[in-house]
């Protein structure tokens, strides 16, 4: 018994404990619901092989959460280094998708129905989309790092302009690319996994490798904690912040291509709509301070999938979409409150009290 208690104490101190606990909490809701409904209680967790791909609610969460997870990676770096958020990522996704589709179809063309109608290879369009997102990231980073403009104000520019530029590029029309090769990024499968999950995994792996084999992570945190001190210590703070915004932009571009491929059309008005909020929330749910400094990448990614798990749960419970945000908010409040410094301090205080009582009892 004591060992279980010790074990729990030990794991509850790990930084990832609370984010993981949040996901667990959301999944438990589904088990309870299925039990009440008289279904097989783990039906939320069942997998099937359909059309040669894994199929089930958990796959849905991993699949539909891909974009938010990819965005959360870049957002974590931006938050950590600059102590502010990049609110342009949703619009940048839409811009990347619009540019990609416009290049593939040609300006003013609304439908591509056969490979012979493509103006250029699909990968060129995709790379161009990701590149433009990187350029926007560079612009944002320049404003924040060099011009010292507050991150939210600097990124507000492309938050508003991104979609509008996308609409200009697509001539105010929805551009459809009705090719299986193009659908691959969002609707296709790789081995038995939906492609978006694989793309998200690659994005995560890349960042993990960079953080593992370079000192970028340390520099970013150092700049986030104190940019002046870091500069005096020999770190080019502005360059680090700039780099973080470029990475954030590039990742937004990747997410944009996935989201566009999912609907095989450039729907500038709806692609990535409100996703910047999900990405920021993911960073917060991951136990990261939005004030910058230390960061925990794994926490942010788990945070992103937690948000998607809540959404998928809402669907599974049959909650009307118009009311879903209310329940979502309640769950988010619970998770954030549990992770808040005040609650942590309260538990630390109680523990200290107990210990002092124990010591007093002994003497």
């Amino acid at each position, binding site marked *: 018994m004591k060992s279980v208690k010790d074990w729990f104490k030990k794991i509850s101190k790990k930084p990832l404990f609370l984010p993981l606990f949040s996901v667990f909490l959301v999944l438990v809701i589904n088990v309870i619901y299925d039990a009440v409904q008289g279904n097989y209680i783990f039906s939320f967790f069942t997998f099937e092989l*359909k059309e040669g791909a894994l199929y089930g609610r958990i796959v849905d969460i991993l699949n539909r959460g891909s974009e938010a997870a990819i965005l959360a990676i870049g957002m974590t770096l931006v938050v950590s280094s600059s102590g502010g958020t990049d609110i342009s990522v949703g619009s940048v996704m839409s811009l990347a998708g619009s540019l990609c589709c416009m290049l593939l179809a040609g300006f003013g063309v609304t439908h591509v129905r056969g490979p012979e109608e493509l103006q250029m290879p699909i990968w060129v369009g995709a790379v161009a989309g990701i590149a433009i997102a990187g350029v926007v990231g560079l612009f944002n980073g320049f404003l924040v790092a060099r011009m010292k403009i507050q991150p939210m104000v600097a990124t507000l520019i492309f938050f508003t302009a991104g979609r509008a530029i996308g609409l200009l590029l697509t001539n105010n*029309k929805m551009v459809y690319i009705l090719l299986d090769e193009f659908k691959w990024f969002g609707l296709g499968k790789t081995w038995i996994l939906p492609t978006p999950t694989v793309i998200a995994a690659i994005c995560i792996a890349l960042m993990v490798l960079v953080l593992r084999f370079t000192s970028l992570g340390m520099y970013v945190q150092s700049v986030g904690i104190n940019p002046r001190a870091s500069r005096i210590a020999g770190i080019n703070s502005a360059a680090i912040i700039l780099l973080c915004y470029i990475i954030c932009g590039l990742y937004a571009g990747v997410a944009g291509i996935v989201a566009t491929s999912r609907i095989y059309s450039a729907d500038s008005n*709806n692609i990535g709509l409100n996703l910047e909020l999900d990405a920021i929330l993911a960073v917060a749910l991951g136990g990261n301070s939005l004030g910058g400094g230390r960061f925990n990448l794994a926490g942010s990614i788990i945070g992103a999938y937690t948000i998607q798990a809540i959404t998928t749960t809402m669907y*599974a419970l049959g909650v009307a979409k118009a009311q879903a945000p209310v329940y979502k908010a309640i769950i988010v409040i619970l998770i954030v409150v549990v992770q808040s410094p005040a609650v942590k301090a309260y538990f630390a205080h109680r523990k200290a009290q107990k210990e002092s009582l124990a010591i007093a009892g002994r003497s």
Partner: protein
Amino acid sequence: MKKILALVLALVMVSCLFVTAHADELLKIGYVQVGHESDWRMANTQNYYDVFTKEAGFELELIDCDNDHARQLQEVRNFITKDFDYIVIDPIQEAGWDDVLKEIQDAGIPCIIADRAVAASSDLYTTAVGTNMTAEGETAGLWLEEYLAGKAAKILVIEGSTGSSAAIGRAEGFNKVAANHPEWEILASQDGDFTQNGGQAVMEDFIKRFPEFDVVVCHNDNEAYGAMDAMDAAGIKYGVDGKIIISFDATKEGLTRTLAGKILCNVECNPIQAVIVMNVINALKAGEQVEKFTLVPDEGFCAPGIESAIVTTMTDEVLAARKY
């Protein structure tokens, strides 16, 4: 320096006078458009630009309100201040119009409610032009009645954005027909936001919750594409020899899929409304009495090989004639 500035200012003022004087000959029409959220909406906007031209004697100011109700109210008040000759409103939401409609009335400007509906007393506006969403829903229901011919059916509904008149009307019309059919069972109804991504997500969930269903009713074409994607992924067959998909809007892309036998029935919502609005305005100008509501006629289409007394069977010619 001061002299140059004075000269420039004077020039600007004179040119302003000139512009206003010139514009006086044209009828100033203010149109507050909902936004640019779909192919349908863009076709509607384009249609207004095509019809209300300077040559036809109009000066059209079309404001894209980007689905923002507050912005729409503000733009209408702008029109009042600038003393437009006619104000045309395509209301984003039904509720919350009483005050501003009263202000238009007090300013003595004729007001036309176009496309969507307002939840306000009809005394507050001059006339309304629009499609009848309830009739569209009913057409879809009646077609299904004809197609099923008494067979039982389990039905899933992917609704449009909650609260929009299209979603309310289409659901109401369809449910009216469904009420006569105890053998029809509506399993669930969920909001898909009128988007393809929304349709995909809702259908992915439906497939898992309801392994057995026969009909999917989608409140617009984009939702229907999403539903088709989700069924493709799950290996579910749809179309003439599979699940029945019913959709609304009948855009060119949607009708392409009806012609291909994927969407079995697609009920149109006609965006080509500007001519009817123009006729109403011309009648008002001539001092004629106009009806309180002018209907923009809608049509329904079904996949080739299906004979129907209610909707038209799709052909290549119909598709070729479709502009949006």
